[in-house]
């Protein structure tokens, strides 16, 4: 049965090998084609995405104008929106004029080679911290000095291009792969046909009985005549090996039967004996014969066992010294060893151990046999010396006795099965054969020599196991000290809002200590940007989404691997580097003692009219963010200008009504509670919604508009300079986890990003999330527009002109 399967497998593997050869050829061909395809895919994806760059550059150039101080540019939101069509790519831009120098953007971007001023776009690749693709385009504008060149450079990282290129390439390759498979199928058929003669041989062999070891006859085709001869020579070898096995079995049968016959004979003689004296004598002999038979049987079994165990699988790293000591301690209890002087010599063993790869059961059997031999042949005043020694490569185990020894000429024969040199002290003739089998199974040598005691010295030389020493050395090394490690979090968020999260995280990660530092959004941004030395943060958390996007766009954040199930929705993450974890709508808060809910405006245009109408009543009592100091205030204000044409008018109206500016939501809440303010705009609603119910807070109302309400998400990123990036990633994962979101819902004034995980917050009948008037701010390059220096200066300028230079209220 087993021979059948072996034959079948052999046929398969041949075919597969031929097929593999053909497949390799196809693969080479595919490789050549794939090179061409790769270049094509690269060019095609570049063409596609170069259009985005060109579009963005054109829309920027269009907004270049000339005023009294020289050329300037009002960066259009559309430029960033066009670039955001490649959603995961970082963006850089630069506007400059040869006569006036840098206007805005990142200075000193790499220029194309052989630059000539031109109105045509020039595309080129350049490397910043990673690969970028650039467009370079100029425009001449008319100034008082004549025609001036203004140039725009826009660059984008290659993520979208690469993924488009890969998609094109993979589709192409899939098609080619399919064609190749069909080709291979034909090859397969051809091989089958060609190999038919081999199958014929296989069938001949199949049909044979196991006893038939005669050579195969036939007239093989030219190509397989070698194989044919090899099979026949193998059959011949098999026959010889079987003859050897048969002779061993015959030997065993002979030895056992002889021994048993002798025993039977002695017992029969004893049974027939007339005198008790003779009978006792016969029984005594029978007993000794029985002992010899037992010894023979034991050794035959040991021999079979040792051969059976002599494959690699039983070997494992072990200390030969321990095994030898244990085996000797056990043997010493036997009565036959009481009158023998036994000693173990191992003082020269380096490092006190003898590491080898060995099978304890086989080696114990070998040692027992060596000691048995030493006892048997050692003579009356016997002493046995066991030596254990090692150098860098070898471990020696030697057993010496004080008997007559074996003459050098007889030593080779002594190792053979069923041979005993001295007939008087002969045992089964298997002892040294067993020892040799054990040595062979361990890759060791058995050597016979003269012992210092006068008799035989049998030595087994094992290869020494070096890795074993290394292993024990490693295990002796003290475990790494488990002192607490620090995770540093820098955040623009109240400590009260973060502390419950930090506590829970520390509880989940014993041995870690979270160090938390609070910042204003702009200061935090500056610190990460300038890479303040000495205090690198592991996690940076901020509510200013635009500033966080800018940090990521500058390549300062690390890619994180957050499990798919925990990922926030698309608007709240960017490039796998920036993750939002809260859902925080901008709201209007008001003093219920002064204003009533039903009078409040319902839309942004209404809001302008409402303030204008109640200007006298609200004079000096409206609060808003100081846009110069508050990142979140600036974010809400600029997003308002994108959403609503009324935004500019609102600023003017607020200025006229003497509105006051604040650094943070909490100050505005305090202002309302104390009656200093009647109303505050674009306040982070969650703080107000979740402020505890006490007398002062009962006066604070929270109001949402019906046309739209901006929603901000607090975001976390891990800087590339983080000293503990793995733990930092774990912390961000924790913020997004079910546990983290639940803690945000229950124990902090923030609202979790996943309402279904943290419990829905409702304001009256209005469920906050899921309501279409709530408009999340999307993370991405779109947020970079208002960080443009010229754009920002212009925006703040118009704000200051409404609120006054001292609009800041301490």
């Amino acid at each position: 049965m087993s021979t059948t399967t072996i034959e079948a497998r052999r046929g398969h593997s041949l075919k597969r090998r031929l097929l593999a050869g053909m497949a390799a050829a196809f693969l080479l061909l595919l490789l050549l084609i794939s090179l061409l395809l790769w270049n094509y895919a690269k060019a095609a994806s570049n063409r596609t995405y170069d259009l985005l760059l060109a579009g963005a550059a054109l829309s920027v150039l269009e907004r270049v104008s000339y005023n009294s101080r020289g050329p300037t540019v009002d960066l259009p939101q559309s430029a960033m929106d066009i670039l955001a069509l490649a959603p995961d790519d970082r963006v850089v831009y630069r506007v400059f004029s040869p006569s006036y120098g840098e206007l805005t953007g990142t200075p000193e971007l790499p220029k194309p080679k052989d630059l000539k001023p031109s109105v045509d776009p020039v595309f080129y690749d350049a490397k910043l911290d990673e690969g970028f693709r650039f467009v370079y385009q100029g425009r001449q504008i008319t100034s008082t000095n004549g025609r001036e060149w203004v140039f725009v450079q826009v660059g984008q990282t290659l993520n979208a291009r690469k993924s488009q290129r890969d998609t094109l390439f993979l589709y192409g390759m899939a098609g080619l792969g399919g064609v190749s498979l069909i080709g291979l199928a034909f090859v397969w058929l051809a091989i089958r046909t060609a190999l038919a003669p081999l199958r014929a041989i296989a069938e001949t062999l199949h049909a044979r009985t196991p006893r038939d070891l005669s050579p195969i006859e036939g007239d093989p085709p030219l190509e397989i005549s070698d194989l044919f001869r090899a099979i026949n020579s193998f059959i011949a070898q098999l026959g010889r090996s079987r003859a050897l096995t048969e002779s061993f079995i015959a030997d065993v049968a002979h030895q056992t039967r002889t021994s048993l016959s002798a025993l039977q004979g002695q017992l029969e003689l004893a049974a027939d004996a007339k005198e008790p004296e003779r009978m006792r004598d016969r029984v005594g002999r029978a007993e000794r014969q029985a002992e010899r038979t037992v010894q023979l049987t034991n050794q035959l079994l040991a021999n079979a066992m040792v051969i059976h165990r002599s494959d690699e699988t039983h070997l494992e790293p072990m200390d030969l010294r321990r095994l030898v000591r244990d085996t000797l301690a056990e043997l010493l209890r036997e009565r036959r060893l009481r009158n023998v002087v036994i000693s173990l010599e191992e003082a020269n063993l380096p490092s006190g151990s003898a590491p080898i790869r060995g099978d304890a059961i086989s080696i114990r059997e070998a040692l027992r046999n060596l000691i048995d031999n030493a006892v048997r042949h050692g003579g009356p005043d016997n002493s046995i010396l066991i030596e254990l020694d090692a150098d860098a490569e070898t471990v020696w185990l030697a057993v010496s006795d004080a008997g007559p020894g074996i003459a050098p000429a007889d030593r080779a024969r002594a190792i053979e099965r069923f041979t005993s040199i001295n007939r008087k002290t002969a045992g089964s003739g298997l002892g040294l054969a067993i020892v040799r089998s054990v040595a062979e199974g361990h890759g060791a040598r058995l050597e016979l020599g003269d012992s210092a005691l006068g008799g035989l010295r049998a030595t087994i030389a094992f290869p020494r196991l070096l890795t074993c020493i290394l292993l024990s050395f490693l295990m002796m090394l003290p475990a790494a000290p488990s002192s607490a490690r620090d995770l540093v979090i820098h955040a623009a968020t109240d400590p009260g809002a973060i502390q419950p999260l930090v506590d829970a995280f520390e509880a989940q990660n014993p041995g870690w200590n979270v160090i938390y530092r609070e910042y204003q959004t702009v200061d935090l941004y500056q610190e990460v940007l300038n890479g303040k030395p000495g205090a690198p943060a592991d996690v940076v958390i901020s509510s200013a989404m635009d500033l966080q996007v800018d940090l990521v766009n500058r390549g300062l954040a690390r890619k994180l691997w957050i499990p798919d199930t925990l990922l926030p929705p698309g608007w709240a993450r960017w490039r796998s580097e920036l993750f939002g974890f809260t859902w925080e709508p901008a709201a209007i808060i008001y003093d219920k003692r002064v204003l009533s809910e039903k009078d409040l405006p319902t839309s942004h245009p209404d809001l302008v009219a409402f303030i204008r109408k109640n200007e006298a009543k609200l004079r000096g009592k409206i609060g808003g963010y100081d846009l110069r100091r508050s990142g979140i205030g600036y974010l809400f204000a600029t997003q308002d200008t994108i959403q609503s044409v009324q935004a500019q008018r609102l600023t003017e109206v607020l200025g006229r009504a003497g509105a006051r500016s604040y650094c943070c939501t909490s100050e505005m809440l305090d202002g309302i509670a104390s009656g200093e303010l009647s109303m505050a705009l674009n306040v982070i609603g969650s703080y107000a919604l979740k402020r505890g119910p006490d007398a002062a807070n009962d006066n604070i109302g929270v109001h949402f508009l019906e046309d739209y309400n901006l929603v901000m998400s607090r975001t976390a990123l891990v800087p590339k300079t983080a000293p503990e990036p793995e733990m930092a990633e774990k912390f961000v994962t924790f913020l997004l986890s079910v546990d983290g979101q639940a803690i945000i819902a229950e124990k902090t004034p923030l609202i979790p990003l996943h309402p279904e995980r943290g419990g829905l917050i409702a304001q009256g009948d209005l469920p906050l999330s899921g309501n279409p008037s709530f408009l999340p701010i999307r993370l991405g390059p779109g947020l970079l527009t208002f960080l443009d220096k010229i754009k920002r200066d212009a925006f703040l300028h118009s704000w200051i002109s409404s609120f006054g230079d001292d609009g800041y209220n301490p």
Partner: protein
Amino acid sequence: MRMLLVEDNDELAETILDRLRSEGHSVDREINGDEANDLLRFSSFDIVLLDINLPGRSGYEVLRSMRSRGDATPVIVLTARSEIDDRVVGLDAGADDYMIKPFDFRELSARCRVLARRRAGASSNTFSAGNFRFDRAAKQAHVDGRQLELRAREVQLLEIMIDNLGRMLTKEEVADKLYTFDETPSLNAVEQLVTRLRRKLEGAQLIIKTARGLGYIAYVNDDD
């Protein structure tokens, strides 16, 4: 001595029974592991000879349940499985000794005597072996009725060797048992002490054998 033999092969059991009874022991025999287990619950023996391959529960299980009951009766395991690491399995399960079939009956009797003596030495004040007698309470040893002059350390060493009769002790183990915490155990001192004691025990049937590089083993030379 009262012994229990648990062995399912009738021929082997018969020879063992004959041998042990002829030496004057009273021996019960059980065939089945379950029944042996029940018997051991209610009767006490001086030595149990336990086969491993038994109908009912195996010898190891019988042994384990004995030890888990707190039954410390000496047990010699009889097994035909030489290639399994019986020593580890058997002694870990709580056996005091083991023998691989086919065994020498004289060896079996000798091992039984060693176990019995070790047990008796630990539980009673007098240990005697042939012409040798040791009185634990009086700390006195006699050979052929003649009292030996022993120093305190030598008496201590003698006690240690008797407690570990038939068991090999390394020099370090002897030093550990011999010296208290604050004394510096010297291996040379142990060697000298053993030599002195052996000289004093000359002619006694209690013999302390030295295997150089290995350790010491005490045995009683009356076993033939």
